[in-house]
């Protein structure tokens, strides 16, 4: 309990955002999710807030994204932009909280830097949304999905190689 008392307010605020923003992303769908899903998500989000560096964060984000893809009736409604921003916000908040122990206050300049970066990353969101809306109304194009699959595979292999190279380098 003493350790919790030493947490800096800014670090606590970042953790609160980590917990709340995934739930906001779900709420943005405008439909009520199943209670067990909501409970599991809330518990996992809480765990992510306590340990922002843990892999629970990936599970939370993938769960929300998957729920939007599978359960939401109209996934490409405009509020998906809000959900996308909330998910990225949760990621950035966790990143800010994981720069050090909770006793470390989130530096204002670091926070501003990451807000700018997040806004830059969010520029992709409306572009992707418009493209997805366009694809949704277009007739079926099997070649497009093949190209997408090849692109995704290329990105994944490149990222995997880069990560492996980084972790094997004795610097």
């Amino acid at each position, binding site marked *: 309990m003493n350790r919790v008392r030493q947490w800096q307010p800014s670090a606590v605020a970042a953790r609160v955002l980590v917990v709340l923003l995934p739930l906001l992303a779900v709420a943005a769908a405008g439909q009520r999710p199943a209670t067990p899903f909501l409970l599991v998500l809330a518990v996992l989000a809480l765990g992510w807030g306590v340990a922002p560096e843990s892999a629970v964060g990936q599970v939370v984000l993938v769960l929300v994204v998957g729920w939007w893809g599978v359960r939401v009736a109209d996934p490409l409604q405009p509020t998906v932009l809000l959900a996308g921003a909330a998910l990225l916000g949760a990621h950035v908040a966790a990143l800010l909280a994981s720069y050090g122990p909770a*006793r470390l206050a989130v530096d204002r300049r670091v926070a501003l830097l990451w807000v700018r970066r997040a806004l830059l990353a969010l520029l992709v969101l409306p572009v992707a949304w418009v493209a997805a809306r366009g694809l949704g109304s277009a007739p079926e194009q099997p070649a497009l999905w093949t190209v997408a699959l090849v692109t995704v595979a290329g990105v994944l292999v490149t990222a995997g190689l880069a*990560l492996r190279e980084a972790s094997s380098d004795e*610097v």
Partner: protein
Amino acid sequence: MTRWVATPALARACAVAAAGLVGAVALGSPVLVVLTAPFLVPAVLGLVHRPRTTPRLVPDLGVQRLHEGQGLASGLVVEPADGVEHVTRVLERPPYVDLSPQSGVVGGLLRDGMPEAGIGVTRWGRRPVGAEQVALTGAWAGFRWGPRAVPAVTVPVLPQPAAFDSRAEAPQPDGLVGAHRSRRVGSGTEFSGIRGFAAGDRLRRIHWPVSLRTGSLQVVTTRAEQDSGVLVVVDAFRELGHSGGVDGPASSLDLTVRAASALAEHHVRVGDRVGLRVLGPGDARVPLGTGTRHLHRLAGTLARVVPANRQVDEDAALELGVQGDCVVYVLSPMLDAPVVTATAMLVRRGVPVLVIDTLGERDLDELGGPRSRAGLAWRMRRVERDNLLDRLAGLGCPVVPWRGPGTVDDVLHRLARRAQQPRVRAR
């Protein structure tokens, strides 16, 4: 960890982006791309900005020594700093070291300057400061180096001299030049008397009014001004009470060391030769000397004083190492028989000795009250000690509690008067 490794944030961004893309292709659901596309930006840029250097951490405290209550900034140099965006530092807090911020954790962007924590030392001694864990993060929080331990640097913390000043003259000035009035006639400025002119007298010493009145040449004689030898004896056989640092309650050893520092500084400033003897671990001895450099040596020796951690042999014979004529200050709580015996022997030899009682006020409530066993034992010990001090006073050795300015004035005046009287020395 001494290499750059991917951060959990990079792994998360990569995983979410990959899952979104794969899911979108597999399920044919474009919303997955929409939701995960923003994660591609930090993922790709984090991977692209992987640092390629091997950082080296060099602590830079910037000071060689400190005084109690002083502080410093915990400097640190990262070489090379290429690719390092953020620095996180978690400082350890050893006893009697204050940190600012109190948590000892600081972090910030390296381009804004190395984040620094304030380190304040609150007690004399050799303090290890600057031990910390340092983590470096690359651009876009893609890769992290560390946390890496940076070892502490031991800094001597000099005792803060207690407020002290004295206008008393030394009982036995015996040096060549100094500020104390000598018993001998010499070429000082203090008036001694008027006598008839003799061959060799300087003409400027002729006192013309008296010469005219008496009809023969009369000259003014003055007292020589000499320095004095002062030996400060520090009793480090015990430490009683808890030390709360420079602004807190003082232990007996705190009082002893701070008083010794004050006395040494005062006497060196007035030109006396000052020596130091530490009774206890290390048995440090500093011969008589003078000057600022010598004062630094004395203060450095005092900073190395540590209390003994074993019982003192009550039958042990102590030799305080007093040579020649000098004033001896014994700073001690006077709880150990060897110290009392050695002091009594010095007094019997005719050496001017002044005991400064540094026991201080002890609260019996800390021992469970006056009626507890510990309280009772302490009261009995005090009775024994008072008895010893009375016997010491009976030998002619003054005992005064440390009170800061003016503590020794009255006693030194009396010792100076006594020094001018004929005496018999016991060998």
